[in-house]
């Protein structure tokens, strides 16, 4: 038996940098350093654990859609232990929204071949968290998402989804799409050996024509949503700061009472 796992990852602007919009109201990806989205590290980790716990012949492929620099995200995942990588890159992809991205990912996943897709719970830049559900819909396979615990055995994926009201045990047959949360287990750091090995691992590059996608279906022009305005949040006016000299709690209560909270 073999098990083909595709992990979708995103190259995102560093959240600790000065993230902002470009003139066309797309996310500026040039001025801020990018990296593998932290939440996708958990997806890579769970894919590797499924691989390590399996008796099957497992192959873990990491897939990203993004500009040239997005290769850095693939390298990181390969150095953690993934087997190979696919980079979908095309100038016409600039400005693609979540619906368009899910189309590109789905076509690439189908072309690569898969038994299991593993995604993070959301990206750290867009933060919508809808791509895994969109992939399941497009691929026509079960959606087993937002898992804090995941396992694969005998062609079945099982997991625990911790919601606000209840914790649910889920089960579906492969092929399937799963997404994992930051509670699924700490992601490993790449070892020196892993970093060296990653340099020799194959990274395939595909463009839109490789995936039979027309330019009009994606990009800013093809986007299903239009951002009309982006303004920086006004800087909060400096508040009152007091040093506690024994009355700090009372002073805070006084402020809250003045604001009618008490």
């Amino acid at each position: 038996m073999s098990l083909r796992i595709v992990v979708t990852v995103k190259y995102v602007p560093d959240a600790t940098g000065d993230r902002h919009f470009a003139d066309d109201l797309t996310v500026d990806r040039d001025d801020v350093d990018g990296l593998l989205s932290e939440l996708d590290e958990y997806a890579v980790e769970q894919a590797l654990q499924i691989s390590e716990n399996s008796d099957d012949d497992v192959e873990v492929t990491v897939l990203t859609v993004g500009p040239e620099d997005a290769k850095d995200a693939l390298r990181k995942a390969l150095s953690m232990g993934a087997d190979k990588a696919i980079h979908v890159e095309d100038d016409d992809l600039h400005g693609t929204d979540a619906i368009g991205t899910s189309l590109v990912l789905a076509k690439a996943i189908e072309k690569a071949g898969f038994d299991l897709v593993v995604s993070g719970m959301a990206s750290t830049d867009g933060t919508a968290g809808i791509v895994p559900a969109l992939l399941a819909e497009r691929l026509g396979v079960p959606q087993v998402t937002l898992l804090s615990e995941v396992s694969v055995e005998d062609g079945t994926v099982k997991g625990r989804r911790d919601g606000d009201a209840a914790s649910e045990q889920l089960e579906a047959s492969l092929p399937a799409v799963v997404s994992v949360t930051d509670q699924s287990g700490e992601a490993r750091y790449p070892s020196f050996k892993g970093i060296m090995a990653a340099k020799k691992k194959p990274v395939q590059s595909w463009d839109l024509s490789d995936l039979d996608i027309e330019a009009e279906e994606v990009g800013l022009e093809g986007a299903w949503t239009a951002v009309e305005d982006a303004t920086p949040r006004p800087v909060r006016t400096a508040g009152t700061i007091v040093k506690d000299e024994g009355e700090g709690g009372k002073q805070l209560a006084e402020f809250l009472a003045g604001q009618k909270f008490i």
Partner: protein
Amino acid sequence: MAEVLVYVDHVDGAVRKPTLELLTLARRIGEPVAVALGNGAADTAAALAEHGAVKVLTHDASEYADYLVVPKVDALQAAVEAVSPAAVLVPSSAEGKEIAARLALRIGSGIITDAVDLEAGDEGPVATQSVFAASFTTKSRVAKGTPVITVKPNSAAVEAAPAAGAVEALAVTFSAAATGTKVTGRTARESTGRPELTEAAIVVSGGRGVNGAENFAIIEALADSLGAAVGASRAAVDAGWYPHTNQVGQTGKSVSPQLYIANGISGAIQHRAGMQTSKTIVAVNKDAEAPIFELVDFGVVGDLFDVVPQLTEEVKARKG
């Protein structure tokens, strides 16, 4: 007037507050038609009518509880086909966003998630979103199809606006995909008796400075004196001091209460992402240089173990 579909989040017929907020927003765009599914669906009608629903489409089947997400997508799609609405509004819960996304794809529409405000526009509803850890505010609209928009809790006031709220049965045929993911077990969360974190008017949070699970008792005591929800920073959750369901921040809940009280929280970007849109922010921290103080309306530099209990006592005394 155009109809606007509102997906109802309810627990056995008890409508949750974010749905009532959606009705307020829906009335700015058209006539709200609510869709309530699962056990107790018909029991939602009175509350929905009181807040502006002209119609309540209901359907109950065991599939809604036994399988993940897709049965609800099937039903909402049936409602869209029956009503041909001007927009579909869904509460921005984790499940709500997944339902909305799959629906949008099926009906050939764009989707906007996590809106914090909504107004009518010449080319359809305009949604306000708070992005990049709330450092930017964007205004967007759906460019293709029937706009599907998910809205965060606390984005609008709940308003009484009595309407007919006529209950109608929704005809639903489940797709082959509906039974793909089975829910084999469900453990309900123990109720704390406190308000839901994302819906609360006041949130009291603890971070690294709380320094131990047992010390969260003083955070809880302050919360209870104010009738508030309890939040925790990622540092506190990762340390195992408080449950992940209470985490506020980039990888936890994003909250926007009237008042946010941060105790022993430094205010790293990861945390700010989840609380920066709070109306009033106050903080207690030993470190005068902590970035949280850049956000506050009122801050106390001091030991939270002195300041917080004193504040709790003072709140209790003033409330009598």
